[in-house]
């Protein structure tokens, strides 16, 4: 910590705030965040909103503008009823991964809360969005708001042209498949024209260098290589197997109109935009919480926060990072704020005051002395799964008292597989990391085959990891939607990856709701 000059006056006193207060807080926080913590953030845009606007934002997945669909109305109605009945409080802020980074803050917040929210969202989350590799790879912070605007207008135009009912039916079906509308592996970056030209030149040069007219005269065997079977060719043509179901439909569904394909594309691009968020909950919240904790403490040290505000902050902070035990009635899973914050703090401890155990487990960072450098590196290069697998320390496993229970439905009892002891640390770490691995948590469903020249029956496989099947009622409904979009029969097989046996089958036939008017 650098030497501290006490400020003459705190940033604010009491709970009231005005725009100049927010401006002052932002400047003071920016000073600490950028100069002392070395954060690298998008420019900030802070928007002050009221209750109803917060509810609005809730219902459109936090985005400031969105196309219209009844399901958002449903979420709005539910949130509003819960809020009015006092069953649910509202978030203090919502932050959007865009450039500039937009943070919505509630007008009801106290001055301390606004400071906290700015530190948390406008710097913590903002830094994470800008630097984490997943966000860099998958999302386009510069373009997202423009894209959403395009999507909204496009949906509106479709409604005018083809009728609200037709658009709604299609969006219903697309939303049902939204969870399986992401590419999980990095896409090829589109090469620009200049690159293309260069590569083309290189290829031609190569051809010219190795050209030998003699090859032409060599008598060739007719059909030396066996033709790929029709099945292989067809799979290659349709890029099968394909896990992104909406992508597959957009490209290959035989009877969709162009506007319907475009709508599928909109839904899938939005799903893809949120894909990194679901993989980085712990890290994202941990990063933001750690950042706000450091900043608020520094503000207090500098005399910019009154003692009263500091107590108010600590109270709110402790609530956020509270982790109830498994047998506590308040328990509802592992709190990502608690786990993330604890891990960030633990890394700081390992860097500055390592124990012998830490030196064994983390030889590369123990005692290195630059916690912010290590943390910034983590925030940039890990997602939840890899971060936990790499950095969850025995110290923390003991602190949380983590234990691993296996529930095999073919056995009568649950079995405690590992606890927080020498033998269990690695097992627990691995199992916890898996909890955050989308490859494990999301159902692995792929389009495997379709015979476009035959009966056009679409075949999907669900590889039922650990024999966990799909939720039956929902699956039937989703499959019906899929059949409507595909407009021919659809078959879903649930397959046990061990031994490739079929555990269960679903099939559905189209209801001619979507493609009926579009004769090919």
């Amino acid at each position: 910590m650098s030497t501290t000059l006490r400020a003459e006056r705190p940033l604010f006193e009491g709970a009231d705030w005005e725009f100049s207060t927010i401006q002052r807080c932002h400047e003071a926080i920016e000073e600490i965040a950028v100069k002392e913590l070395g954060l690298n953030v998008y420019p900030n845009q802070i928007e002050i909103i009221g209750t109803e606007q917060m509810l609005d934002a809730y219902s459109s997945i936090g985005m400031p503008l969105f196309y219209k669909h009844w399901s958002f109305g449903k979420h709005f109605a539910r949130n509003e009823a819960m809020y009015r009945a006092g069953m649910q409080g509202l978030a203090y802020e919502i932050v959007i991964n865009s450039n500039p980074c937009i943070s919505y803050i509630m007008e009801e917040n106290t001055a301390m809360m606004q400071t906290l929210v700015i530190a948390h969202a406008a710097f913590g989350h903002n830094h994470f969005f800008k630097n984490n590799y997943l966000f860099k790879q998958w999302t386009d912070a510069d373009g997202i708001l423009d894209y959403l605007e395009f999507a909204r207008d496009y949906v509106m135009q479709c409604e005018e042209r083809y009728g609200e009912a037709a658009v709604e039916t299609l969006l219903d079906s697309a939303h049902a498949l939204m969870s399986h509308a992401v590419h999980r592996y990095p896409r090829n970056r589109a090469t620009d024209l200049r690159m293309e030209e260069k590569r083309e030149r290189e290829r031609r040069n190569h051809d010219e260098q190795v050209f030998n007219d003699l090859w032409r005269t060599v008598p060739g065997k007719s059909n030396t290589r066996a033709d790929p079977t029709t099945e292989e060719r067809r799979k290659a043509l349709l890029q099968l197997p394909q896990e992104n179901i909406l992508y597959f439909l957009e490209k290959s569904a035989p009877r969709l109109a162009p506007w319907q394909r475009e709508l599928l594309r909109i839904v899938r691009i939005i799903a893809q935009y949120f894909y990194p968020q679901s993989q980085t909950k712990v890290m994202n919240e941990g990063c933001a919480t750690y950042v706000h904790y450091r900043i608020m403490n520094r503000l207090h040290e500098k005399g910019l926060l009154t003692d009263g505000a500091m107590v108010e902050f600590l109270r709110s902070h402790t609530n956020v990072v509270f982790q109830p035990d498994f047998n506590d009635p308040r328990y509802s899973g592992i709190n990502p704020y608690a786990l993330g914050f604890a891990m960030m703090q633990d890394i700081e401890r390992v860097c500055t005051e390592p124990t012998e155990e830490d030196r064994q487990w983390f030889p590369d960072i123990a005692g290195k002395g630059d916690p912010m450098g290590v943390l910034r590196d983590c925030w940039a290069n890990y997602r939840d799964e890899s971060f936990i697998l790499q950095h969850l320390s025995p110290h923390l496993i003991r602190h949380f008292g983590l234990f691993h229970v296996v529930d095999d439905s073919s056995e009568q009892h649950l079995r405690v597989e590992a606890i927080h002891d020498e033998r269990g640390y690695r097992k627990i770490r691995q199992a916890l990391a898996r909890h955050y691995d989308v490859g494990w948590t999301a159902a692995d469903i792929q389009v495997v085959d379709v015979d476009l020249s035959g009966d056009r029956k679409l075949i999907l496989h669900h590889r039922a990891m650990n024999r966990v099947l799909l939720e039956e009622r929902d699956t039937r409904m989703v499959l019906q939607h899929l059949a409507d979009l595909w407009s021919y029969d659809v078959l879903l097989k649930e397959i046990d990856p061990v031994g490739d046996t079929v555990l269960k089958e679903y099939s559905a036939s189209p209801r001619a709701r979507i493609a009926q008017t579009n004769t090919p």
Partner: protein
Amino acid sequence: MHIVDRRLNPSGKNLANRQRFMRRAKSQIQKAVHETSGSRGIKDADEGGEVVLPAKGVHEPSLRRSATGGIRDHLLPGNKEYIAGDTIPRPQGGGGGGGSEGSPDGEGEDDFRFALSRDEFIDLFLEDLELPDLAKRRVASAEAVSWNRAGYSVTGSPANLALMRTVRNSLSRRIALKRPRPEELDRLRDEIAGLDADPDNMPRKLELEEELARKMRRIGLIPYIDPLDVRYKRFDATPKPVAQAVMFCLMDVSGSMTEHMKDLAKRFYVLLYIFLKRRYKNVEVVFIRHTHQASEVDEETFFNSPETGGTVVSTALEEMQQVVAERYSPDSWNIYAAQASDGDNTASDNDRTASLLTDTILPMCQYYAYLEVGRDSEHFPPGFIRRDSDLWQTYSGLIKAGAPMAMRKVGHRREIYTVFRELFAKKVGSEAVSA
């Protein structure tokens, strides 16, 4: 950094989504609205409020793994007693150890509750319903009229002169007939004045003066505003319905009426009240209960305090007649009556009831509905056919003779709404008698 104050942005951004949702879940919301309304008092039945929908209808499905079966890992914090290798009995009902799985997106299967505004509530409640044709008889003869704008006419009083329209007509006529404009005359006069000094200009000057004279003559011939141009705002008289109504609730409260029957009757009254409230600014409700004698009471007493005695329906009709005579002159009030009874009546009273109805009550009512409440029909053994009750027979006779009234039988509360809709559904033609 920018700070943007969004608080003043227009609210209701989600209105379109909400309407779409309402349209989507309409049948369910209607059902919920109908059920909710049964549990309210008559006069606050038309407030908005919370309704509960079953989660199923507005469910958004997704592909997800089921919460049971297979091999699952749970990682739980807060271990105090377990060591590796311990076995734990499987918790029942998915609680306890299984808590970490839960539903992945937080969407429980709970019922879906949300609040409707008053207007939404009423709209859904009364959709497709209409006051029966009968009502228009009184409306047409109502004395109050309101004047509505209805285009333009060529006659009218000067106070109603449509100035814009008149001037517009005049302008087009002046252009069409080439009436010279004042500027043209001014220009000619200026030119003539400028030519005065030089004798060489004389021919030109004469020419101009002649033109000026011609134009002046033309102005004299073509008036600025001709009577042809004049238009008046036209008003049509539309008869204004008498904006107040009184609703008579007549009910038999003798011992044979069970709580169940009273509940059915109440539900029907609630519906009628909401319906009338929608059409009339001011709706009053009069409760008349009767056994072998009738009296006007308040709502609480009407539904809740038990009475004993025989059943003489005509007493209630007499009471109603008296109340109307005292307080609700049919000239200025729309009168609606709904009678609920289990159908019993003293045999000797049937004729008197019939004549009272046809001679006095029906002529002064907009609408008279008779609701025969029965026991829950499930209580009857199959094949059991009830004899039509005394009142039912009497009233059937009246309707056959063409009396403007409607009657229905109701056995279970779920039928009330249907019956009500039947009675008031938008349609042309007279009510058919059916049970």
